[in-house]
C-alpha cells in the first residue's frame, strides 16, 4: 500500500514539475487586468503634451465655444454667418449663451434644457430649436454629462 502511495506521489510530483517546467520554458500567460487606478490629484497630475486642433475655449464658467466656420458679409450678401460649437458642462445652473444674431441650433450630443426668454424645452441628441435676434438664451446640461450643440448664427451688421 505504501509502495503504491509512494509511486503515486512520485508520479504526481514529477507531473507537476514537468508542467511547471514546460510553462517556464515557453513563457507564462499574462493575467487579465481591471480598470486602472484613478488619476492622481490635480496638483500631482502630469499632463500630456496633446493639444486639440480646434479646441473649445471657455467663455464663462460652464460654457465653452469654438468657431467652426465664418462667412463675412459682402455687398452682394450682407450677412455675417457664424457656425460655432457650444459646449455646456453638466451642473445645476443653466448658463447664459451670448449669441450675436438669430440662430438655429442642433444638439450633437448629450441632453438638457434650453430656455429662451420664459419658455423652456427639453433637449436630446438631434433636437433643434431657433432663436430670434436679441432673445436671451440659456442652456443647462443634465447632470450625467455635457451637452454639445452646433449653432448657425446669422446677423446683418
Amino acid at each position, binding site marked *: 500500500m505504501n509502495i503504491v502511495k509512494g509511486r503515486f506521489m512520485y508520479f504526481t510530483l514529477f507531473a507537476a514539475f*514537468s508542467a511547471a517546467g514546460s510553462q517556464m520554458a515557453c513563457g507564462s500567460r499574462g493575467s487579465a487586468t481591471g*480598470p486602472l487606478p484613478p488619476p492622481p490629484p490635480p496638483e500631482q497630475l502630469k499632463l500630456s503634451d496633446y493639444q486639440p486642433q480646434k479646441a473649445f475655449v471657455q467663455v464663462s464658467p460652464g460654457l465653452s465655444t469654438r468657431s467652426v466656420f465664418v462667412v463675412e458679409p459682402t455687398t452682394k450678401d450682407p450677412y455675417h454667418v457664424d457656425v460655432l460649437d457650444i459646449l455646456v458642462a453638466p451642473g445645476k445652473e443653466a448658463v447664459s449663451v451670448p449669441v450675436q444674431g438669430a440662430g438655429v441650433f442642433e444638439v450633437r*450630443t448629450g441632453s438638457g434644457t434650453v430656455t429662451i426668454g420664459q419658455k423652456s424645452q427639453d433637449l436630446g441628441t438631434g433636437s433643434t430649436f431657433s432663436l430670434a435676434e436679441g432673445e436671451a438664451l440659456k442652456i443647462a446640461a443634465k447632470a450625467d454629462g455635457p451637452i454639445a450643440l452646433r449653432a448657425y448664427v446669422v446677423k446683418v451688421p
Partner: protein
Amino acid sequence: MKHKDLSQSLPLSIVIFLMCVICLSGCRKEQEWHAFHYDSMRTSSQPKSTALSDPAKVPNLAVRWTWTAPAPGPGGNAGFRASPVVNDNIVYIGNGNGFFYALNGDTGALLWQYPSAGSPALVTQFQCNPSSYGIASSAAITDINGTDAVIFAAPDQSIGMHLGDGRLFALNAKTGAEIWKSPVIARLTGLTSGSKTEFHENIGYSAPVVFNNHVYVGIGDQCDNPIQKGRVVAVRLDTGAIDPAFSYCSTGTCGDSTRGGGVWSPVSGAGQNVYMTTGNTKSGSPTEPSPNNGLSMIKLDQNSGAIIWKFQPVPWILDGDPDWSAGATIMSTSCGKVVISTMKDGWTHALDDGPTVPGPPSRRWTFPPATIPFTPGDGTTHGDTRYMRGGAAWGDVYIAMNGGLNLTVSGVLGGYRRLHAFNVCAAEADRLRWLIDVPGTSPPNPFQRYYLGHPTVTNGIVYVGTDLGHLVVIADPSLVPAAGFRCSNPDVTNANCIASGYKFVPQPAVLKDIPLSGRMVYNEPALANGRVYIATEGNNVYMLSP
C-alpha cells in the same frame, strides 16, 4: 525489489515524458500566430509572455531581416495587404502579385512559393480596389489528417469563367504541395461594370477561419460594383468540399435576387458558433430586402448557419454605407464572453454572447455612448467612413480605433489616427481606459482616410503599423507609467477638461517607434515566438526582435 520498482516505473516515465512533449508542443503552438488576429476568436492577442511583452526589452526592438517579394507580373499588384501567420518558425503570407510565400522565420529565406515560379499568378481580372489585388486574405494554419497545413483564399482564373473566381487552397505547410483546392466559393461570371446579371463576388480581406472541422470564409463584392449578396461558406477541413448543410446569406433567400450585407470581415468562431459582421444593403436598392441582415454583427449556428442573434445598430433608412469591416472579436472576460467590434462609422459595440439558442442579443455598451438603434433625427450620421480595423483583446481590455467622445460633434476624421482602450466590464464612467494619437502617422488631413493598421497586443504591450510605415509599440499604463494625462474628449484642452464635465485619462507611453518601408494600414503585426513579423504595402516582410 529495487529492480522490480524500476521496471514498473519505466512505463510511467514514458507516459510522463510523452505528457511533457505534448505540453511543450501545445505551448509552442500557443506562442505562434496561426491565424489573422491570432486565433479563431480573433483576439489579436499573444497570451504568452516573451521579450515582446517585457517593457524593458521592447526598446531594443530592431529589424533582423527583410524579405522583398518579386515584382508583380501581368495582372498583379505590388504590396502586401494580407498579414503573416507563423507556424514552426515558418512565416506564411500572400502578396498582391498573386503568389503565396513561405519564409524561414530565422532568416527570411524563401522556402517555397505557390504557384511555382513561372506558373500563372492567382489574380483576378476584376480589379477595382486593394481587396482584389492578388492575395489580400490572410492565411490560417491547421492540421489536416496529421499534416500541418496552411489555408488561404485567392482568386483563380483556372476555374469557372476563367476570370478569377475566389476559392480556398490548402497546402502542405512544410512543402507547399497541394492538399486540396475548394470548388468556386466567390463567383465572378463577368466583368461588366454595374451588371446585375453577373456575379461579382469577392473573398477580399475575409481571412478564412478553421473551426469545427470546417473552414469558414466570408463573401463580399468587388468595390460595390454592384453590391452582391453577402454569404458565409463552410468547406470541410479534410476535403475542401463545400458543406451543403451550412448556409448563410445576408438578404432574402440564398436563391433570390436581393443583394447586400457583404461579409468583408474575417469570420470568427467560438463555442458552437460562428460570428461575423456585414456590409450595407441600401446601395442601389430602392427597397429594403427582407430579411435584411446587412450592417449587423451576427452569431450563427456552426453547423447550419442559422442565425442565433443579430445586432443591427444602423437601420436601413440610415444606411449611408457604413459597411462593417472589422470582424467580431470574442473576448473571454471577467464579466463573461463578450462579442465586440467597431463599425465603419466609428462606434464600438459590445454585446453579451448570451445563450446558444436563438434570441435577441444583449448589448453591454456602445462607445461613444448612444441610444441604439440609431434613429432618424438623432443627430448621428453613418457613412462610408474608415473605422475598418479589428481590435485587440487583453483580459478585460479592448484596444481599437474609435470615433471618440467628439465623434458626433467633430466628425470622423480626428479618430483615424487614434487608439482607444476600453475597460469592457467596467461601469460607463470607467469605460475609457486610455487614448493616444499614434505617432508615426501623417498629420490630420481631410482628404486622407487611412492612418493605422490592425493593432495586436501581448500582455498589455500594443503593436500597430501606420500609414507612414512606422511600427509603434505602446505600453498599457498598468505596465509603464503613462506619458501623461489628457482630456477624455479630444476637442477639450486639459485646462478646460474637468470644468467641461470630462475626465482625465492616461496617454500611454510609446516604447518604440521604428520606421520601416511602406504603408501598413491593411496589415497587423504577428507576435510569434518573441518576434514581430509584419508586412507592408512597400512589398516587404520584416522580422523584428528585441
